[in-house]
């Protein structure tokens, strides 16, 4: 069986993105890795101690994020809480996913770059097959990076996200045994499948969008800019709200965090962002083709799409990268918040203008 030369070409490009993805994961997740390692050590210590004094412990309860038991010797409850580490794991998980998504976006832009478009289009290959090859290459990167994430998750999170797996193996002195620890495997497998589906669906969807939309680069640039605009916008709203005591800033962040962590997966948010951005662009095209007839129908709908695109883009940003750079700035005064909001407004204006210019 011979591999198509164009697939080879795309896969060669993809390898650089896999390597870059690994570097980004390692670089941006260094703090989380360090915390995980420290946590793993402290859990080892706890587990050794637990095993040594096992005969003194009763009412042992192992939950998703804690181990509780009663020490008969002094009648005190002891527990090992790993909730913080669980969140640390989520941060790392989000960053890994973020790295994969960024790499897939960049890869798609590269594969669709103008440099070789003319050359590729002359080749005796149907366009749909070229798209298919690109999609396959994107999927290949997605799957490889996903496997790398799985290995990272398995190694670094074994004591928190899969606490039962860890506790069972550590406390009962059973070596890490896939067959005996069925519950752990099931959870791990379920997580892996869920993540894989998201990544693969995301990668496939990106390729699909590139196939149907002639300006992929614009779509992804807009997608990225909208993340930042919305981040700036939300932060600005939060600061203003806090400043004028409209509502509690922490409550707002909790709300964001809830959405980020539980309600919607990062890729679902990204897909929603891209969907609304493209929907807006299509509506504009439609408006233009019909010489602005039906203006009152398309116009508000288009801006609603932009607004929703930005809204989901903002949450995508939170969920995907979990960067929280702005929240780490020690003091944000009134002037800074005004600047942030103006910046957000300017960026929004820039996006819309750029989009309209490009379509014209």
């Amino acid at each position, binding site marked *: 069986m011979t591999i198509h*030369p164009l697939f080879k070409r795309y896969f060669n490009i993809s390898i650089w993105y896999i390597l870059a993805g690994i570097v980004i994961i390692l670089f941006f997740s260094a703090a989380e890795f360090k915390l995980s390692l420290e946590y793993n050590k402290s859990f080892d210590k706890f587990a050794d101690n637990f095993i040594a004094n096992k005969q003194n412990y009763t009412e042992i309860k192992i939950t998703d994020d804690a181990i509780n038991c009663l020490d008969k010797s002094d009648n005190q409850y002891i527990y090992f809480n790993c909730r913080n580490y669980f969140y640390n794991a989520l941060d790392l998980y989000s960053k890994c996913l973020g790295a994969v998504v960024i790499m897939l976006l960049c890869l798609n832009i590269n594969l669709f770059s103008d440099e070789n478009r003319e*050359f590729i289009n*002359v080749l*005796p290959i149907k366009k749909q097959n070229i798209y298919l090859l690109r999609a396959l290459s994107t999927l290949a990167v997605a799957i490889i990076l996903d496997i790398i994430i799985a290995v990272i998750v398995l190694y670094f999170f074994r004591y928190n996200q899969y606490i039962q797996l860890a506790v069972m193996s550590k406390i009962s002195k059973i070596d890490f045994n896939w067959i005996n620890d069925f519950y752990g495997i099931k959870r791990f497998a379920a997580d892996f499948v869920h993540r894989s589906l998201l990544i693969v669906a995301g990668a496939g969807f990106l390729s699909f969008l590139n196939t149907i939309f002639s300006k992929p680069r614009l779509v992804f640039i807009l997608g990225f800019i909208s993340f930042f605009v919305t981040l700036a916008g939300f932060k600005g709203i939060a600061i203003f709200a806090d400043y004028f005591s409209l509502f509690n800033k922490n409550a707002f962040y909790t709300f964001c965090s809830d959405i980020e962590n539980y309600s919607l997966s990062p890729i679902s948010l990204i897909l929603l962002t891209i969907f609304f951005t493209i929907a807006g662009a299509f509506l504009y095209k439609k408006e233009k083709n019909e010489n602005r007839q039906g203006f009152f129908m398309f116009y508000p709908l288009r801006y609603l799409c932009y607004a929703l695109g930005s809204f989901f883009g903002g949450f995508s940003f939170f969920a995907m990268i979990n960067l929280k750079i702005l929240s780490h700035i020690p003091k944000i005064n009134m002037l800074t918040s005004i600047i942030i909001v103006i910046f957000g407004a300017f960026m929004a204006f820039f996006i819309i203008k750029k989009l309209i210019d490009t379509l014209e």
Partner: protein
Amino acid sequence: MIEIKNITKSFNGYIAVDNVSINVKKGTIHGIIGENGAGKTTVIKCLTGIYKPDKGKILIDANEVYENPTVKEKIGYVSDGGSFFNDYNLLSMIKFYSGIYKTFSKEKFDELNNVFNIDTKKKIGRMSKGQKMRISFMLNLSILPEVFVLDEPTSGLDPIAKRQLLNMLTDEVEKRQMTVFISSHHLSELERLCDEISIINNGRITYQSSIDSIKQQVRRFQVLFKNNPDLSSVKDKIEIEKIGSIYYITTDSFDKGLEDTLYSLGAEFIEEIGMNLEEIFIYTHQRRNKI
């Protein structure tokens, strides 16, 4: 062999090519000339299947080109930019081409590279424009195309390479009855090379025929008048250039009536002088501006 039938292509409302029709017979060389932005490259890109015409059809051996790999396999295309994978070297490109085109001949490539002598291990990104043009020419000729499309193939080439390339082209036409569609701003080359020429202005074909026919149609005369003549009555039919006391008149509608008119305006003698393709092209350009 090649049938371009009433194609129109526009970009965001701007009509780049307007109702263009060209027929090219098998084993002939057809040149397309025009100013920058006249629509030559757009016609070429439609012909090679890069663009889909908005209207009309492009057929090669009665089969449509766009999205038709069977037909595209028969087309070699040398573009002005010579775009390739910049991170590949020539060896990798040969491998790529032989994987894509069943007809790719390594022997042919080696034969051509014996003339151009390009280092096969050098990365394409590090090559000069002339070298890229040569490798594009060699790779595309090595697929043994039935139709060879060239867009400004000699730009960036030194005179020796230019001559070598054009000789290879004519050899191939002679040996394999290859059909060539070529655009160039070097009109003297095209005049030497082409069996037929199309002149394109503002996306429309203004002249299309053999070079000899065009030369029979667009003619130039030197005319000596007794006095300063009033040529306003024939101004819309002719282009006038005066050097010393001699008037050089170029026209595509010379007939007995025009000749008589010139004599009636005081012409002492009218003598036809030869025109080259470049002069014909400049004439067509001036006429269009007048219209």
